């Protein structure tokens, strides 16, 4: 977490308030960092396991590899994942072919499974930000908050991470996790209140995810209040100690 504080504090009271704000921001950062690191560990393990299949990658093999991890993620008590899975890039199972192994909810509902029988399913995903960006950049990404029509029909953040079978190889696919804004809000609002009554968690575009201010909703574009403190949260989010909706 980085704190690019823009004002210097005076007096013992404001120093204590500073510490409380920093502690609260650390708490939120820890939540997001844990999600991101779980995903990068998973991406590495999945890459190694796919490489071990030695070019004989089938849908069944992918399911067998991915399902147990998803099960663990969505069934973790107090966990953050509403759904999770793997999406193959063209080339892994065949040219111009995709494959989706994604489940959601503790009931492990298989998402978009019909697409696996379609020869042109890849066209469904190539434009989606959560797939396109990690594939194009080779870097992890977070999409949202957005309404996810493909899976949850909820307001979510989708964390995705590219999977490589060889360090220098092409992107074999992505692993990802959906976290509903609702789930995040529960823990985040009390922490944000400790930072300020208009403290707001925003994504890289300045779009609000959760705010302590009741007039800023998830999905609203926001601006940082002048001279406010900025705390980094995970790879791409920030907390502004004060914000206004636009």
């Amino acid at each position, binding site marked *: 977490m980085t704190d690019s504080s823009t004002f210097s504090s005076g007096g013992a009271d404001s120093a204590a308030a500073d510490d409380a704000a920093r502690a609260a921001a650390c708490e939120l950062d820890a939540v997001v960092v844990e999600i991101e690191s779980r995903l990068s560990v998973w991406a590495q393990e999945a890459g190694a396991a796919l490489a071990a299949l030695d070019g004989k990658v089938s849908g069944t093999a992918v399911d067998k590899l991915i399902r147990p991890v998803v099960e663990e993620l969505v069934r973790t008590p107090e966990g953050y994942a509403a759904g999770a899975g793997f999406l193959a890039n063209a080339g892994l199972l065949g040219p111009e072919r995709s494959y989706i192994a994604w489940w959601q909810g503790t009931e*492990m*509902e*298989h998402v978009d*499974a*019909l*697409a*696996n*029988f*379609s*020869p*042109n*399913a890849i066209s*469904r995903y190539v434009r989606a930000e959560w797939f396109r960006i990690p594939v194009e950049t080779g870097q992890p990404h977070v999409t949202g*908050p*957005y*309404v996810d*029509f493909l899976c949850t*029909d*909820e*307001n979510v953040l989708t964390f995705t991470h590219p999977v490589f079978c060889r360090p220098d190889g092409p992107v074999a696919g992505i692993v990802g996790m959906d976290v509903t804004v609702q789930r995040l809000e529960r823990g985040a609002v009390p922490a944000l209140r400790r930072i300020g009554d208009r403290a707001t968690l925003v994504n890289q*575009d300045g*779009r609000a995810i959760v705010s302590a201010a009741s007039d800023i909703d*998830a*999905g*609203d*574009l926001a601006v940082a209040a002048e001279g406010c403190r900025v705390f980094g949260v995970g790879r791409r989010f920030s907390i502004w100690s004060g914000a206004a909706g636009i």
Partner: protein
Amino acid sequence: MLLSPQGASRSLAAVFTPIKSRGLVDEVCGRIEQAVETGLLTSGQRLPNETELASALGVSAVTAREALSQLRSSGIIRTVRGRSGGSFIADNVLPSRERALEQLDELTRLQISDLGLHYQAIASVCASLAARRSDAADVDTLRSFIPATDADPLSWRLALSEFLLEVAAIARSARLARELIRLQADLGTLTLLPCADAGYRNASARILEQTAGSIEAHQPAEAETGVKSLISTTTSWLLAEHARRI
């Protein structure tokens, strides 16, 4: 006290109305029909067998078998026996003018205009929210759904519903998006009819451009007016056609 002085409230009465849930079989059929309409599954394509279908959708083999037989009797799929046999998506399964006219004839004027009003109510709130929350990437995606005026009626119908769905996506309200999807399902193939009329397509294309412009320029009131007039153009067309056929 359970009853208000005026008697039981209407919302309380709704609790006791029987739940007409679509059975699992209908659900599976609906998914496949939807996959055909959106081009994910195409005519002549082989469907997975009962066991594969059951495991992909997480239903029992019995449910999958019943669904396949229901799809067969409604002419969505055809089954070929023998070694190279299996179930295939039938030819001419796409929404047809005949089927749309049948649907129109079954409706009353009141049903058509009421459906139009409901659609307007939901879509216009989406539009005004979208105008508040849009960013440049949102507007690019939205514009990509505006079809060429000479595109065929089927792609026009799909593009119109995708355009409004994208407006809901930009609005980032999960409930409104879900309601819009439900309304589009209620409209069924009806919207195919006006899309065959060049005059309707020209008028709609202008409205789509204007609406995208208002959403881009963060003009909630104009965006709302645009979407309302798009839907009333459709409703008036359908009502005129309905009147002509009686």
